């Protein structure tokens, strides 16, 4: 995204009224699979578009990391939704959600191997051929590493981005979760990622459970994640950052407080 959008939020039907009421909002993200490509748009979403808010479709079911080619129908749907929303960008995950015909119902991490890079790049190219706007790829949070990793996370991502020409959708909560669960320094990864390729950033909440940090999207954004936002913006401020909340929605004031905290951490103006 060439333009600067500041702080946004993931649009969900459950909080549509809240999102609609954000006076300074300039961008939002919607789960691509929840939008009908040709039917009527959910009212709240239409209101945002009418107001000139940029809405980015965020795919969750493409399974770019699968060994098999991405399903054509799913790619077509993503393309149609992007057109429908007049989006400057689409995004998906570097993950697989199905294999051998079995749906995991979950974003699963890839082994960081050259073979996996090949598979992802091939699938990203298929999507790029069908979707008229650029795609941003989001690395996921993983609770474990595969034993046969050949590349570091930064190498793995950079390789995929370099070869596919895709942009990066960086989830700072994932960066934090991975580093914390591996006992590494989250800022270290930031130093090794091509930050100029970041299209936008996810900021989400999580919680610790039995010694592991879970990227739940249903808890408040913890301070260390906000600190990481600041650390990221000090290195290279991305054009847009957004709060990703998927459930257990708090009172409006608390949600607005989270958006304000992201604005403060990134130095962008508050949208509330």
């Amino acid at each position, binding site marked *: 995204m060439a333009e600067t959008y500041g702080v946004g939020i993931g649009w969900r039907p459950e909080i549509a009224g*809240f999102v609609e009421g954000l006076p300074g909002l300039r961008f939002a993200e919607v789960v691509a699979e*929840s939008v009908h490509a040709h039917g009527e748009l*959910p009212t709240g979403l239409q209101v945002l578009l009418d107001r000139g808010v940029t809405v980015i479709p965020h795919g*969750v079911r493409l399974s770019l990391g699968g060994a098999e080619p991405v399903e054509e129908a799913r790619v077509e749907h993503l393309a149609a939704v992007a057109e429908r929303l007049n989006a400057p960008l689409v995004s998906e995950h570097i993950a697989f959600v199905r294999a051998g015909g079995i749906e995991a119902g979950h*974003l699963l991490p890839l082994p960081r191997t050259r073979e996996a890079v090949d598979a992802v790049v091939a699938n990203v190219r298929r999507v790029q051929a069908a979707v008229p706007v650029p795609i941003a790829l989001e690395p996921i949070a993983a609770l474990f590493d595969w034993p046969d990793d050949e590349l570091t996370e930064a190498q793995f991502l950079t390789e995929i981005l370099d070869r596919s020409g895709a942009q990066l959708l960086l989830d700072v909560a994932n960066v934090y979760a991975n580093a914390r669960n591996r006992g590494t320094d989250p800022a270290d990864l930031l130093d090794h990622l091509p930050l100029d390729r970041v299209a936008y950033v996810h900021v989400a909440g999580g919680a610790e459970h039995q010694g592991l940090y879970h990227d739940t999207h*249903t808890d408040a954004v913890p301070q260390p994640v906000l600190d990481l936002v600041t650390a990221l913006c000090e290195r290279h401020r991305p054009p847009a950052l957004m709060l990703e909340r*998927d459930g257990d929605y708090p009172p409006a004031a608390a949600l607005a407080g989270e958006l304000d905290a992201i604005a403060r951490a990134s130095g962008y103006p508050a949208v509330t």
Partner: protein
Amino acid sequence: MNDTWGISGPTFLTYFIGAMIAIAIIAAVHRKALFRGNRSSRVDNLGPQQVAYLNGGDRLAIYSSMGGLRAAGALGTGPGRTLVRTGPLPAGVTPLDSAIYNAAGNGVRTRDLHSDQWVASAVEQLRDTLERNGLAVSAGKMREARLWVLGGVALVVIGIARTLAGLGNNRPVGFIILATIAAFILTLTMLRTRRWATDAAHKGMRELRSQHTYLSPANSPAYATYGATGAAMGVALFGGAALYSMDPAFAAEAEVQRIAATGGSVGSSGGGDSGSSSCSSGSSCSSGSSCGGGGGCGG
């Protein structure tokens, strides 16, 4: 063979059907005049309970207040499907809220709330204000509108009498039976029509509903985010189904009736069962959410 009552079948049928159409038209015109209301009155500055009254009468006003109190953590259910207090009465509540909160202190059941003295007087107060402003149809006007039911009843009685007389006279009665059934349906329709909002209020209500689509149970709205007022407004506009969407256990325990919003039939899609049942499939967590649940879902 003599005509029954000295009137031929076709002539009688013509008069009978003519009278039926006349009653239907005059009743409709009369209603239109009675239910017109005050066009200069607005609904957009009304509170949720007032909107609820216009949408579904006393019962929905009570449900709306219960929704607000529940969202504020003040109301719960106890043994024997009674209402209980679960927290302090929030600040800035309406007289109806106070009355229901008070009733909950006495362990009243939802279905008995309307006969609680305080609750009844709070609802009456609410109704009076709305009627004075030309937004609610008063009981008097409703009675006046229903006077035409008498005309319908008279037709049905005449129709039955004619049928019996015709049978006694060995005349064909097929058409008069059909006409009598039609008169019966007309009468029943006039009798059963119950509305609370005047035509003036109706238009505004439609707008309110479309402005608040996000509160429709079909969106499984996050009532925690929208707060007590949002919860009360959700129930007011989308009926008891909204209470089920917000807090199914409470709504079921409190024996809330799902189909409560009837007043503004146009566009009240979430009013019935469909609204609340769709929340299992419509929720972004089951299908659309990028959060896979469980552990490190990423995304």
